[in-house]
């Protein structure tokens, strides 16, 4: 789609402005940050940003009834959605971050603490290579040696069929998941310079 209506879902925590800056720089004019049902319903594409602890994020989503609003749009109307970082982890069944908390369960999987050999620092912070299992649609414009910016202590553990890309950090860290119209990336495309902007372009072009 050339000029889709994009809504960045605001659920209280999250670097919404950073995401909006990055997407805006690609020339998308119909771009909104909102938690209002009426605005979200009009969207052609949804972004679930993330910087937050799982419990606070999941709690905020429910408090604002965004779980049911988004559920209807994504699962019934098949609107494409891209979760970023904890926004991607929210797609999972549950997370063990500070106790066990239920997620949206749109992609079956569990969010687990990174348990790594001692030479690996946790959180996993910095620019890391990503290997693609499936290039379409997210990575269609990215080259094989693309670097993305990661910043997380927990990772999405799920069936290989949902893993679109992974990264090597002592273990295979799920970097991207996809299932039908539901996409998620563990890294921050809005903070990955050209590589990240290409990913956004790939996502919006595919809808």
């Amino acid at each position, binding site marked *: 789609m050339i000029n889709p209506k994009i809504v960045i879902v605001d659920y*209280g*925590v*999250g*670097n*919404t*402005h*950073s995401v909006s*800056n*990055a997407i805006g*720089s*690609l020339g998308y004019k119909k771009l909104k940050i909102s938690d209002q049902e009426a605005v979200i319903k009009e969207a052609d594409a949804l972004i679930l940003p993330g*910087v*937050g*602890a*799982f*419990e*606070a994020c999941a709690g905020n989503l429910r408090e604002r009834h965004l779980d049911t609003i988004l559920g209807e749009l994504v699962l019934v109307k098949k609107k494409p959605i891209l979760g970023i970082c*904890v926004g991607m982890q929210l797609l999972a069944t549950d997370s063990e*971050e*500070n106790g066990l908390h239920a997620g949206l369960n749109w992609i079956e999987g569990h969010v687990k603490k990174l348990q790594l050999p*001692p*030479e690996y*620092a*946790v*959180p*996993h*912070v*910095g*620019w*890391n*290579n990503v290997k693609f299992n499936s290039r379409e649609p997210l990575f269609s*414009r990215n080259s094989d040696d693309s*670097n993305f*910016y*990661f*910043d*997380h*202590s927990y990772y999405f553990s799920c069936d290989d069929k949902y893993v679109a890309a992974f990264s*090597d*950090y002592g273990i295979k860290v799920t970097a991207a998941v996809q299932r039908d119209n539901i996409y998620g990336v563990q890294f*921050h495309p*809005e*903070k*990955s*310079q*050209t590589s*990240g*902007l*290409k990913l956004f*372009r790939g996502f919006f072009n595919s809808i």
Partner: protein
Amino acid sequence: MLKKRVAATLVVKDGIVVQSIGFRKYLPVGKPAIAIEFLNQWGIDEIILLDISASLKNAEPDYNMIKKASKKCYVPLTVGGGITKVDHIKELMHCGSDKISLNQAAIHQPGLVTEAALLFGDQCVVVSIDAVKMGNSYEVYDYLTKTTLKKKPAQLAKELQSRGAGEILINSVDRDGSYLGYDITLINEVCEAVTVPVICCGGAKNAADFIRVFSETTVSAASAANFFHFSEHSVNCTKANIIKQVPVRLETYADYSGNPFDGSQRLLKKGDKELEEMLFIRIEKEII
């Protein structure tokens, strides 16, 4: 593989980026938005913006300044200065910052570190510790009162990690603006005390200092402030030298891989013959 990060620290005083020398002298550099735009174009990996006047005036973070400054920032932006409440962090995240840095709060209200980590995740909370050398050992420095605390930086880092800090920014007051290179002993002490990533700052003069700190310590990122400001393409040129020995991320078309550098890692003029034979090639701007 995970790359070592080359970060830039922007010290902001009264809305202006300044060159800081020994935490005492400040020379004006320019507007934060312009500095950030250029650092982005030159392929910096991360930017840390520290507003040193906010805490001094007992003021909240300058949200408007951050909003303007972050407009063209497509790399992670950590913001510090004046944060005393979780609400300040919420507002900063809505103004374009991606992580926050706590310094005064880390010393005087460590509970905020935990509170922030529970809400935003530990990966969002950077704790910045200023260290000063006292004889053969180091002590934490409080830049507001200009006094030292009877505590080792490594010890404070460890305590704050257990309270939820996701990264430690260790800054050497003695090396600040000195161009003497990073304080390797200090950095090693901190790296050994914690399991979270450590960012070091203070004293970088050129790429050789980055290579040394990346080879002799386990820091995840090294930051510099002053020396990035004063030469064109400083970040790309620095990375061109670092990458010969340590893997870093390259972003820009101009990677200076074929250019000669002198002993101080300054870019040299190409040979006359080479210049004579040089062809101009039009580089098509990549359309994303």
